């Protein structure tokens, strides 16, 4: 089944304004891990807001797990597709970790005991079970974002969309988040859409999608995308250093794969030599 499906979707923020997303066809399979890459203003964040009904498309249709997204199915869609946003400080409602994680579950009217179980499940899934009673403000950026993911998981979504959730974090925090979502995808079978402008985060995805000016311009396995360096540059996406080295080595005739991990590249070079 398709987890999220956009058919001919167009959207603009102001009437008469330019379309941020134009006639977009895009779909994510259930259980898939998709990375959406794009420069600022490519429409990738709008994509996240359309997927769970925070924005309503001007044209076209969106369906979520087979149900067309309409005003009536809005809340079903929001329960199924959780969105984690960019700034951890602007998406926590409560001061204490468990209160914040409970927020979504309280909103849908679950019973007390069940909310407790959901909190436990969600915090364990993001590896924050030891911080249940902690003050959110005292956590690191990566930990705050993990709490935000837990807050979404408490609604037991079948898919989560991370809208540049790593953009404000340090490298360590970014790695924490990517590890958590990868595990959620592999172990819990949750569909993941990771929107980012850090290319190395796309490496673990099943599929990478590159957006530019509201359109999908490239699509395929992350390694394949990274190999097309010149094309990426035209969309204002710079390949990380390691990727550039890989491409150069290959051009010089060394049979290395398209990896973005320094360790793997080192191993492959060692084998060649």
């Amino acid at each position: 089944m398709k987890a999220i499906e956009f058919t001919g979707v167009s959207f603009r923020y102001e009437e008469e304004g330019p379309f941020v997303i134009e006639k977009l066809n895009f779909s994510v399979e259930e259980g898939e891990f998709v990375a959406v890459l794009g420069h600022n203003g490519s429409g990738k964040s709008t994509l996240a807001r359309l997927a769970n009904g925070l924005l309503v498309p001007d044209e076209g249709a969106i369906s979520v797990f087979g149900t067309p997204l309409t005003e009536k199915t809005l809340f079903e869609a929001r329960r199924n597709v959780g969105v984690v946003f960019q700034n951890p400080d602007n998406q926590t409602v409560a001061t204490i970790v468990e209160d914040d994680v409970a927020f979504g579950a309280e909103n849908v009217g679950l019973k007390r005991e069940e909310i407790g179980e959901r909190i436990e499940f969600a915090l364990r899934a993001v590896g924050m079970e030891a911080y249940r009673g902690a003050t959110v403000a005292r956590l690191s950026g990566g930990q705050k974002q993990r709490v935000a993911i837990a807050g979404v998981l408490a609604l037991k979504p079948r898919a989560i969309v991370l809208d540049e959730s790593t953009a404000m974090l340090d490298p360590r925090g970014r790695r924490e988040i990517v590890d958590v979502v990868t595990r959620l995808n592999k172990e819990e079978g949750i569909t993941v859409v990771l929107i980012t402008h850090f290319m190395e985060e796309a490496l673990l995805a099943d599929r990478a999608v590159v957006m530019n000016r509201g359109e999908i311009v490239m699509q395929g396995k992350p390694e394949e995308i990274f190999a097309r360096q010149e094309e990426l540059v035209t969309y204002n996406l710079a390949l990380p250093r390691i990727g550039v080295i890989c491409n150069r080595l290959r051009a010089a005739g060394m049979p290395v794969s398209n990896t973005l991990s320094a360790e793997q590249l080192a191993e492959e070079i060692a084998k060649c030599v």
Partner: protein
Amino acid sequence: MKDVSFGQYYPVSSYVHRLDPRLKLLFLIAYIVAIFLASNFYGLAACAGVLVVIVIAARIPFGKVLRAVRGVVFLVIFTAALNILFYNGETVYASWWVFDITKEGLIFSAFLALRLVLLVVCSSLLTYTTTPVSLTDGVESLLTPLKWIKIPVHALALVMSIALRFIPILMDETERIKNAQKARGADFESGNLLKRIKAMVPVLVPLLLSAFRRADELGDAMDARCYTGSGKRTKYKKLRFTWRDLIAFLVGAALIAGVVLMKIYLPAPY
């Protein structure tokens, strides 16, 4: 977040932390009434004694309590100074132009200063020992009667808790913007009051803009987590009145009764 310890939850587990927030709110009100009813030092001493017991029971370090007082030090000194200078007493120690420093003035201003300090410490103890969420739950529960006349108590309580949560964040942000403007040559320290107030405009405008942006994002995040503001919402933490609360209630009632009795039976002049 350096200086704002007022309004910050202090996360330890204690008897006071576990009390019902409604009781704590009512106790605070009763305590404030008691402070203002007290007409002599015996009464205030009793109030202060109770406060010390609460601080110990709440396992709050005394340094933390002092930090709450630091915020009002200026106000305390200012009112005390005015009282010392203007109070009309009998025993004059020193005199200059229209000002007399009298024994009664000194005692009276000490009395007022103590009252103010107790007031601040007690209020900050409430926020040290109660999370904003349970505090707002308490307010919401106490204001339930207003629901009958169709006032959206729940929404108001949520607004209050979010406001409390954003205080430290916006404080941090103010500091950041201030530094950014200083780096661009803004001067906040020199000039008269009017000039200094004017100098704050380039800080307040970006702060306000950012607050709106944050509010917008928070709204989206709340929507994304299925918030509707409807009555179908459930509560994870239910307020329950227990024996713990009963004991605290009795202590509070005894305090107020004691202060009232002292007012009646002990000689008034401090």
